[in-house]
């Protein structure tokens, strides 16, 4: 087995084990810390998938902001916590989750995915591994591109996509964040006594 396979299995086992801990562990603070473990192992899996920028964003925002917010909430509601208890529908919920897992695994294994072919992999790697703007003409020629038609390659990086092809969802997410900030302010405003 290659080292990359061993690393993948270790990260996957850690992610799934920590996720089970988040849902099943009695103490809420431990569950939150295990959630941080899930976030960081998923960031490791992103690095294995050549998505380094996304891995850093994952650690910064998920492990760095969202997990801290959840820890604040756990600490501030400490006095009424009864721990991580199951409710009445836990058996049907477990059955439904198992059924969904089986359906997803069957779909993933059965679908004939249109994978990137071996010959195109070197060209696609230029786009996938980091800063496309730093790609030189020698790299393009070494990967097999015809130097006259490289315009699309130079514009295929994340930043160009966000401001180019996906500018509408980008602006929509800005509006969503504005709505979230206004909503949060409205929720925590003190009541005006009549």
């Amino acid at each position: 087995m290659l080292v990359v396979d061993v690393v993948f299995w270790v990260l996957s086992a850690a992610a799934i084990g920590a996720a089970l801990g988040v849902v099943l562990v009695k103490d809420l603070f431990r569950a939150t810390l295990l959630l941080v473990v899930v976030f960081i192992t998923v960031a490791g899996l992103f690095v294995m998938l050549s998505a380094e920028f996304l891995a850093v964003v994952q650690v910064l925002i998920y492990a760095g902001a969202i997990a801290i917010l959840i820890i604040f909430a756990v600490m501030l509601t400490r006095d009424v916590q009864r721990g991580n208890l199951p409710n009445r529908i836990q058996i049907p919920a477990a059955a439904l989750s198992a059924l969904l897992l089986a359906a997803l695994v069957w779909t993933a294994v059965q679908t004939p995915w249109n994978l990137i072919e071996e010959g195109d992999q070197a060209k696609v790697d230029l786009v996938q591994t980091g800063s496309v703007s730093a790609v030189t003409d020698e790299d393009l020629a070494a990967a097999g591109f015809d130097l006259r038609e490289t315009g699309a390659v130079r514009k295929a990086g994340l930043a160009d996509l966000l401001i180019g092809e996906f500018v509408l969802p980008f602006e929509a997410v800005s509006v969503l964040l504005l709505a979230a900030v206004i909503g949060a302010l409205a929720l925590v405003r003190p009541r005006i006594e009549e």
Partner: protein
Amino acid sequence: MSLENMMIVAAALFAIGLYGALARRNVLVVLMSIELMFNAVNLTLVAMARYVAPAGLAEDLARNIGGVLTGQVFAVFIIAVAAAEIALGLGIVFAMYRSSGTIDLSDATQLRN
């Protein structure tokens, strides 16, 4: 490390998050399970961006290569939406804690009764 293996890991994370969101009484555990589901979806998207060829790549790579990182762009948007959602969700948790003194979902029956 293939596409199917990554998708199976993501499916397992999603199923565990689904169980937590459905079958737990504590509001914060439900929110954490929803974050698990978001992460599973992000993992699937990034795995597909890595392995699956966008439409038309085999025929005309130089023109259609712009679609290779679409999965990662979508994952960035999902991370932004998840951050906004957790902030508001925790605001609602605090409002619930202030008004009814509990964060147990079995006690939150005001709409039912």
